């Protein structure tokens, strides 16, 4: 066992992944018995790190720490649905499969974000890092064809409620969790640690 090793990190150098540190840790398995002492099975412990590419969506995940929300728009004049704006960010237009153009939707979000539906739940899965209960919200934006899923950090959600985005600019995780929302008019002191408004 080498559990004291540094947890794995990765860089891309010359177009290749360069892992550094430990990506898995071994633990001994243990037997499972029933009351009578019969062997029923074994545990198979594990602790490992995956590597995951953001590829063409990197723009979205890297811009959150800068207080920006990026989506994409199909500007192919020959597309059956040209002008479709996607958030979640889509690299290709799903209709014509031409590269969609990145568009900064931060101002649109600040101006028009509205709760389409929501759910408050105490139930989470393993590895959850959000505070409970989680307030899931699904957000409509003017001029955007899709409805983004995220979470509300202040107050109680309601359908039709106006919300504004907040961003984890301090110690960002570079995941979707760096984006959250608060009711329009929320004061800056009420934001969770590490989060701030767009500007």
């Amino acid at each position, binding site marked *: 066992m080498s559990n004291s090793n540094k947890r794995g990190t990765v860089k891309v150098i010359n177009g290749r992944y360069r892992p550094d540190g430990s990506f898995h840790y071994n633990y001994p398995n243990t037997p499972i018995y029933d009351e009578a002492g019969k062997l029923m*099975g074994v545990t198979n412990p594990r602790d490992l790190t995956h590597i995951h590419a953001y590829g063409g969506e990197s723009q979205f995940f890297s811009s959150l720490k800068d207080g920006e929300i990026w989506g994409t728009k199909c500007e192919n004049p020959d597309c059956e649905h040209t002008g479709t704006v996607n958030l979640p960010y889509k690299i290709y237009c799903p209709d014509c499969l031409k590269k969609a153009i990145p568009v900064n939707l931060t101002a649109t979000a600040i101006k028009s974000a509205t709760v389409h*539906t929501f*759910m408050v739940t105490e139930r989470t*899965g*393993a590895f959850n890092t*959000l505070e409970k209960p989680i307030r899931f919200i*699904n957000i409509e934006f003017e001029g955007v*064809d899709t409805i983004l899923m995220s979470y509300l950090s202040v107050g109680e959600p309601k*359908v039709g409620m106006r919300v504004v985005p907040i961003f984890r600019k301090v110690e960002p995780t570079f995941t979707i969790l760096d984006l959250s929302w608060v009711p329009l008019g929320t004061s800056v002191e009420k934001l969770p640690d590490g989060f701030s408004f767009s500007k």
Partner: protein
Amino acid sequence: MITFSQKQLKIPQMSKPVYLVTGGMSKFGRAIPEMRTEELVVDAFTEAAEFIKKSPAELKKYIHSCYYGHFADHFGDQLLGEALIHDRLGLDPLGNVGIKTGGATGGSTLWEAFKAVASGYSDCVLAMGWERMDEVPTDEGNNYIACAADKDWETPLGHIYTGYYAVMAQKYWQVFGKSEDSFRKTMAEIAVKNRGYARMNPHAQGPMKITVEDVLKSPVVAYPLRALDCCLMSVGAACAILCDEKTAYELTDNPLLVYVTAGSHTLRVADRRNMEIPLLPNESADQYKDLGERFPGSDRYPGFTGFLAARMAAYYAYGMANIYDPTEDLDLVELHDAFTISDIQTYEDVGIRPYGEGRTYVESGDCYHTNPNTGKPGKLPANLSGGLIGNMHAVGATGIMQAVEVGQHIWGRWAEMHENQKKWDAYGRTKPKDWQNLQVDNAKRGMAISHAGVGSHVTATILVHPDHQLKGRNS
């Protein structure tokens, strides 16, 4: 995609008819630590063989290719688990393939099996599905299930798949349920009904004799959904044997015509775009003109309230089986009651009721074996197996279990398969003193809907007694 070409709307064609010959299932439980998956699978296969008075070895001789539904490799920590099962069934070196479409895995397995026979590739195929969700603690299981959502855009949000569906439930509850107590009570009735029917099923994991009050007092999972509104998490296996006509009649005097179709919709609900409501044969565009007035907030279709994949699967299936009006033309259904509210949503998507009126299927009493309002047989009984809420949701097996249950009614052998004291004893379960025969009298046609999560994949399996095929009313 939000617009269809005519090519995409083509009613699927078969080069030859396909028959369900037999099916079987294991016991279902939250955890079955004393059995390996192969033991469950062999139980299901043996039940299927014995149902047509064959030995497993005799039945195996007919099988030409194999389709295995097993959703979550992660749970068993075994990739290519399908291949291990194939070997244990002694079906090597026949071709086999694993199928995974989340909660719809069982239905999708039937879909693949169906196409193999319909195309002429095989004359007899095995569709076998299973799941074992007991090999990790529940919260880790929830994380694994959440990994079937988009890992970048959804999974980090709570690692809880239920939450991704629950926002849809909330929207339906507010728009079509109008947040009414009466609607909440209707949801609860489904939970009472399905758990009650599960009491008559020796395979069932979650039988309960409960009241609407019990459901309404059960802990909130995600308002308005309460613990008793939610389906089970299960271990178990189910299988079906599909054949062409000649082989079917070699194996049994009484095979059933089977049609299986599939639809899908975006894995992320976030990506769902507005469209016109695709109509089923018994609907007209006019009837939805004022939907937005009757149900404020329902202006987006399918939005967060409809399962377009279910509608597509039903559209294709009704076209194949000449179903015009499911409530009139079918005698029973097994629906994917993952949650009481998603059950209601599905009534509308598959045309049992028009959009906005799903609740009336329950309130009219039509969905019961015996209509509680009239004491007469329900018009279209639903989930007499107990469904996912009362019987099981062993994901890869679920859609197959549903189809086999429907088949047992059409074969008129439901009581035989559920009453047998030996089966109750073998499964360590006590048959209730008030055990009731839920056989639907003169069942001729039925349907099973298999559904994944937020509606990413849905299949429709229609079973028809060959003497009771419908003539086309759809054109």
